[in-house]
């Protein structure tokens, strides 16, 4: 800072007349006359030269990179500091003055993992050094996040954090992954963790572009998450984006990927079908004369590209960063894609003698995509793709096109031409996400800082669809059907808090007190019409339809508010004993009149055993040993939808025939029972953790936890005799999650130019439904896993919700338990290599012990299928005693798997003259193989939620296997 000021003063004095030029040219050009030429070599501690090491003059962005012999040359002002850095080595500062011996010989030392202890970790409303933590917080830095095709930002966390399961149930580019931290805590509500982006809670993670993420911290236990009170029960994911990197930089990153479906179902080809018909002498079989592989007809080689440009200039007292990105993500099914354009801008300025810091930011992105056609399954409310069932049903002898070149249509049920289905509909969905914030930080007294953070978020989803007049489905046509909908959610949030930091002798305290106010709005409208005389207008002119019915036009709006007061105290004694206590009080408009406010306390302790004198003997190899113990209560307020505690009337929903006027009129009718006791679901968690660091090579964490969620919400059946509506949302049940997690980070090799790091995580979680009933509300074993809508399986339930069992417990028709959909173990193994300018990484993850009901195979084994519909090749081998319409252990398969998610090979080019400072090119192979005994397309089936955990529902969008070529350039 001082340096810049001095230089500036000097420059301005000397070149007053050239101030204009100063704005155009870089500052350094005018300081050359007193610089000295420094030459030297960078070597490692074994004396080998390091090629590609970066040298930067401190306080500037000027610098160079060593050549293949480790040599460099640079003009430097005497008295300045040269920063030398190289991947996996500790950075080094070298003071250059007139007396420096030239050429320089700079020896770099491999970094060691224990440095972790000084890493800054986001803890919610502030940061702490990792060494001072008392709660369970896992972190992953941006360079270790997933590379390759990212369709949804949460995927970068896949297989990175012990206890955080990221499940991608297929390859649809428009669908995100589901996140679960330490098991689910709710039956009816979302179990998604709270996402906090740069201090703003509740942000849609997809607002953020993956390349903008610098680090992710996951608050796993209640003592860490309790500061988020009724929003923290599912854990908290804190994302920090690229905003605080000092200096001036321009960065481009881009990639192009080629993908194909990694697997398909093994169905009969036309000739295999014919051979079978001939062998069995089935005279009634109809051969349509074609030769069609219906899966191939809809699959394609997808080409995905992504480009991101970011530039920033960040100094001591002001700075900005801007980025723009574009992505076109094709799916492996024809026509399915997602395009995204996003931009982010943020700037800060300091004032009041550096005591005030103002920051504003705006991040927005715009998606548009073609959704594959899907239908709501009657009676279950679940969405299913329309095409897959037909792809598998259609006889392979049916040609795609008939002799007139039109799509072939075959009479029958669920045998509509899937190519026609995929092609004849116009559909476009558009989504806009926006996050705007203004942040003020004011240092009131030394150590006492007040922060106010105002934020606004928007998520607006438009959807358009048109089915032309010639589209026929199951013999039914609406003679043109058009729809337009808009759903928009917005929030306004004020967060205001004061922090106080003080260190006195060996005592360190940190205090926090704050207030937060959040208001959410959800609104939307939609309209559809049918019977169009011309297909020209598509969904652009709904009024041209002639078939408007009651209920074709609708709108809605709801709102809720959350008010919170929170505080936290940290105390650390000599870096050896640490204690944290937090308290949060939340009030929500959604809670019932009797339960408006909830209190969420937590406390935790940590003891750095390795800091004690009696541990001196082991200090040579045991650098760190820390024991942590935490307890806390968090809540899940999102489990309660707006207005659910009130008795309400609905209008515009149902009609009656008014005998007097002889017309149909809308009735007003009760839509909901009142429950003034309705409140959040509350989760108590005990966590014991042990952090360790060994031999300057290995760091690790072992954690054991027990979570108990009480006041579980469930929609209870209430006697029709007392309530106008037959269900009531009430807090009754209880479920528990118990688990153990292991994280190991090892620097296995650190010599010469070769490094080899390994990250390993292992997590076991046992989810149990402890209670579903109390004195007021009872429910028996609840049938779940409804297979309704699958041919031959209507009315069949494959699972049960039952006390003492877990979610997704499979049962057969007589109630025998056949296993469950929850994995026993989640594991991941990631490796990072570097050799000179090359780098390589490998990522694997897996789940063990979970069961999947292969309902796809059940349907495709239906006894009446052959020869009219296509069948799996093993159709004829189905054992005699196995029924395709009854859930049995034959269909409930072990779906344990280990996936080689990605292998990356990269090469970093040394600086190329003035063109760029650093360039890295890489190639990534994704989803290269899966080790599994599961017989379906892919064993990774979503196991979360109540609807269909662990059921392969004839609805699997094939996951791609992709090859990505990418480049990162820094100018």
């Amino acid at each position: 800072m001082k340096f810049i000021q001095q230089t500036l003063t000097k420059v301005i004095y000397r070149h007053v007349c050239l101030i204009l030029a100063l704005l155009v040219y870089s500052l350094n050009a005018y300081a050359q006359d007193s610089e000295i030429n420094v030459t030297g070599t960078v070597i490692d501690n074994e004396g080998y030269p390091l090629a590609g090491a970066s040298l930067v003059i401190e306080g500037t962005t000027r610098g160079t990179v060593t050549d293949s012999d480790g040599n460099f040359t640079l003009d430097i002002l005497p008295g300045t500091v040269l920063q030398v850095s190289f991947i996996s080595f500790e950075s080094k500062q070298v003071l250059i003055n007139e007396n420096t011996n030239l050429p320089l010989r700079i020896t770099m030392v491999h970094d060691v993992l224990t440095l972790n202890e000084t890493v800054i970790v986001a803890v919610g409303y502030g940061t702490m050094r990792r060494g001072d933590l008392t709660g369970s917080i896992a972190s992953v830095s941006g360079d270790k996040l997933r590379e390759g095709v990212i369709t949804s930002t949460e995927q970068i966390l896949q297989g990175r954090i012990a206890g955080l399961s990221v499940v991608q149930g297929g390859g649809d580019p428009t669908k995100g992954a589901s996140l679960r931290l330490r098991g689910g805590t709710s039956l009816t509500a979302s179990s998604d963790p709270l996402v906090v982006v740069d201090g703003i809670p509740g942000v849609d993670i997809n607002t953020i572009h993956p390349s903008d993420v610098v680090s992710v911290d996951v608050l796993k236990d209640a003592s860490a998450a309790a500061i988020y009170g009724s929003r923290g029960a599912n854990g908290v994911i804190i994302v920090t984006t690229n905003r605080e990197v000092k200096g001036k930089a321009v960065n481009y990153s881009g990639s192009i990927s080629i993908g194909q479906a990694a697997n398909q179902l093994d169905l009969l080809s036309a000739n295999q079908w014919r051979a079978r018909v001939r062998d069995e002498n089935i005279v009634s079989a109809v051969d349509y004369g074609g030769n069609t592989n219906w899966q191939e007809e809809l699959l394609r080689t997808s080409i995905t590209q992504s480009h991101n440009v970011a530039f920033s200039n960040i100094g001591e007292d002001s700075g900005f960063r801007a980025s723009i990105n574009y992505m076109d993500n094709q799916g492996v099914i024809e026509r399915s894609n997602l395009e995204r354009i996003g931009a982010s801008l943020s700037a800060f300025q300091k004032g009041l003698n550096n005591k005030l810091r103002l920051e504003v930011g705006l991040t927005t992105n715009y998606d548009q995509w073609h959704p594959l056609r899907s239908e709501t399954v009657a009676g279950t409310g679940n969405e299913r793709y329309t095409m897959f069932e037909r792809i598998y049903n259609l006889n392979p002898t049916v040609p795609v096109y008939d002799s007139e070149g039109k799509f072939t249509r075959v009479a029958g049920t669920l045998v509509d031409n899937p190519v026609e289905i995929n092609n004849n509909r116009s559909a476009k969905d558009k989504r806009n996400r926006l996050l705007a914030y203004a942040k003020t930080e004011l240092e009131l007294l030394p150590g006492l800082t007040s922060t106010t953070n105002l934020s606004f978020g928007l998520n607006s989803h438009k959807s358009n669809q048109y089915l032309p007049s010639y589209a026929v489905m199951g013999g039914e046509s609406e003679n043109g059907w058009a729809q337009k909908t808009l759903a928009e959610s917005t929030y306004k949030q004020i967060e205001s808090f004061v922090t106080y930091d003080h260190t006195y002798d060996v005592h360190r305290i940190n205090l926090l007190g704050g207030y937060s106010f959040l208001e959410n709005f959800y609104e939307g409208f939609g309209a559809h019409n049918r019977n169009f005389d011309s297909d020209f207008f598509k969904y652009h002119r709904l009024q041209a339809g002639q078939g408007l019915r009651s209920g074709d036009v609708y709108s809605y709006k709801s709102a809720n508010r959350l008010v919170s007061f929170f505080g936290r105290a940290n105390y650390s004694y000599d870096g050896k004993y640490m204690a944290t206590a937090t308290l949060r009080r939340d009030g929500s408009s959604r809670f019932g009149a009797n339960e408006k406010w909830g209190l969420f306390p937590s406390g935790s302790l940590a003891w750095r055993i390795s800091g004690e004198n009696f541990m001196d003997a082991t200090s040579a190899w045991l650098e760190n040993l820390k024991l942590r113990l935490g307890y806390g209560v968090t809540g899940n307020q999102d489990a309660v939808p707006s207005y659910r505690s009130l008795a309400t009337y609905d209008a515009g929903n149902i009609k009656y025939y008014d005998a007097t006027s002889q017309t149909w009129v809308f009735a007003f009718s009760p839509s909901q029972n009142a429950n003034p006791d309705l409140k959040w679901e509350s989760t108590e968690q005990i966590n014991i953790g042990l952090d360790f660091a060994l031999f300057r090579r290995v760091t690790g964490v072992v954690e054991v936890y027990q979570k108990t969620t009480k006041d579980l919400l469930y929609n209870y059946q209430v006697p029709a005799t007392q309530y106008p509506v037959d269900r009531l949302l009430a807090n009754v049940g209880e479920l528990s999650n118990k688990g153990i997690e292991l994280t190991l980070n090892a620097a296995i090799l650190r010599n010469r130019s070769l490094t080899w790091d390994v990250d390993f995580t292992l997590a076991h979680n046992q989810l149990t439904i402890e209670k579903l009933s109390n004195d007021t509300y009872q429910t028996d074993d609840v049938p779940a896993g409804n297979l309704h809508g699958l041919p031959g399986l209507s009315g069949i339930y494959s699972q049960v919700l039952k006390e003492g069992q877990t979610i997704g417990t499979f049962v057969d028709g007589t109630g025998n338990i056949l296993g469950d959909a929850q994995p026993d173990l989640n594991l991941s193994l990631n490796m990072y290599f570097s050799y000179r300018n090359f780098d390589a990484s490998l990522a694997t993850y897996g789940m063990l012990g979970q069961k999947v009901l292969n309902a796809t195979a059940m349907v495709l084994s239906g006894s009446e299928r052959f020869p009219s519909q296509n069948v799996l090749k093993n159709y004829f081998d189905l054992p005699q005693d196995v029924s395709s319409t009854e859930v049995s252990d034959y269909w409930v398969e072990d779906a344990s798997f280990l996936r080689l998610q990605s292998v990356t090979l990269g090469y970093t080019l040394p600086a190329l003259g003035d063109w760029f400072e650093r360039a890295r090119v890489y190639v990534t192979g994704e989803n290269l193989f899966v080790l599994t005994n599961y017989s379906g397309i892919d064993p990774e089936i979503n196991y979360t939620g109540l609807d269909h955990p662990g059921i392969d529902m004839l609805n699997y969008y094939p996951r791609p296997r992709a090859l990505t070529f990418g480049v990162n350039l820094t100018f």
Partner: protein
Amino acid sequence: MKSKIYIAGFVVLLMAVSCTNLDETLYDTIETKDFGKNPVEVERMVGAAYSYLRGFQDEDGLNCFPTSELVYFLNLTTSDEACIPTRGSDWFDGGRYQRAQRHEWQTTDAPILSAWKYAYHGITRINAIMFEVSLTELEESTKETIYSELRGLRAYYYYLLLDWFGNVPIITEFGQENVPNSSRLEVFDFVESELLDVKGDLYDGVAYGRFSQNVAHTLLARLYVNAEVFTGTQRWQDCIDMCERVIGYSLEPNYFTSFLTENQVSNEIIFAIPYDHNEQTVGNFMNSMSLHYNQNQAYPGPFQWSANGMSAQPGVYSKFDENDVRRNAMKEGPQFIYGTSNLIQTPDGDLVYTEEISNFENAKQYEGVRLYKYEVRDDEQWERDHDFVVMRYAEVLMMQAECYVRLGYPESARPFITQVRERAGLEVPQDITLAFLDNEYLKEFLFEGIRRNVNIRFGTWFEPWWEKGSTPQYRGIFPIPQAELELNPNLTQNPEY
């Protein structure tokens, strides 16, 4: 320092003025307590009672519709006029329709729960509406008139419960908890006294789809004609008296006028549940449940796929005289692709509906004659637009005829029978016997939902028929659904279940 104090003050202020109001702000739904402030709002609340007649789908996806669910799956399959055979894996549904056919239903069978829920859904909603009306500022006399119509409608649901379950809780006020069963006799007395009490306040003309005096009289006549079954006491003369008070209706010259899409034109319909899919009515898809999947090929327009379920029980079709116009309420024989003489195909062969069903547990797709009573248009949707006929004048005539025969005056029955038979294109036989009337009920009201009631009244219910052995006496009523027993500890299961 001063500026710091100001700023600190500002921060504190910001926290203090921020809102802590946690009342809900409603936009698209209205709290019960804020509704019913003017006569139109009250009218819309009361009108809702009529929309509940169409039934509902509960949150578990259980259909509680009065057309296919109750009439078909419960009243028809358990009677001697229809059946739902299993065809391959279709329509097995855990064996519930096979059990219904064989009178082996279980307390957990879905159709039984549907029936219970349908009736109590209507009753409790009516009780809730009456409670809400009581809170409004309407004149007391106006409220009483509203109550009368609602109580009449409520008595209709209790009549259904009396018929299906016999011993059920009588709930007359909103919010009553865990009410125990009343005896079948008490329920009978309740329905009778409610109807007698309110009928003076009801609309006394002919009004379509409204609970009028005529509807109350017809319902009382039904109550009395079944009084022996319900209570052990015969009330034949009371039935005749009530029938005579049903005024303003006559038989339509064409039998099928009452089953047209626009059947509100029929002068024969006393009470109907109106439907119009353009008004988003849901649950009226009886034909769709019966015709073969590929029957749509017989129509030019985009005709809805059908579900190939319900068929007439073997033996029913051949009971009809060839000249009986009412036989056209069934579809039998070959079905052709529209505009051609090509037979529609099924995986089991040509689509030729046969009266015989070779194997009840695995029938061929084309077996069984199908329901074809209500008009079927060329461009039919899954949800049909005809109104569902609950009571029509022919039933009033038939009840009078039956009561005269029961009282020993068969000749007094003749004028009533003549009207019904002549319209069907048939003569009246020499002797009007109970057996003759039993058959006539079957033919006149085929697939309308009253057959189960007639079977029980005439005693045939307990005798063996196709795919069914003898039925024990206790199965003259259905069991209280298991799910309801678990919700209300004061409920007692019907005897012997």
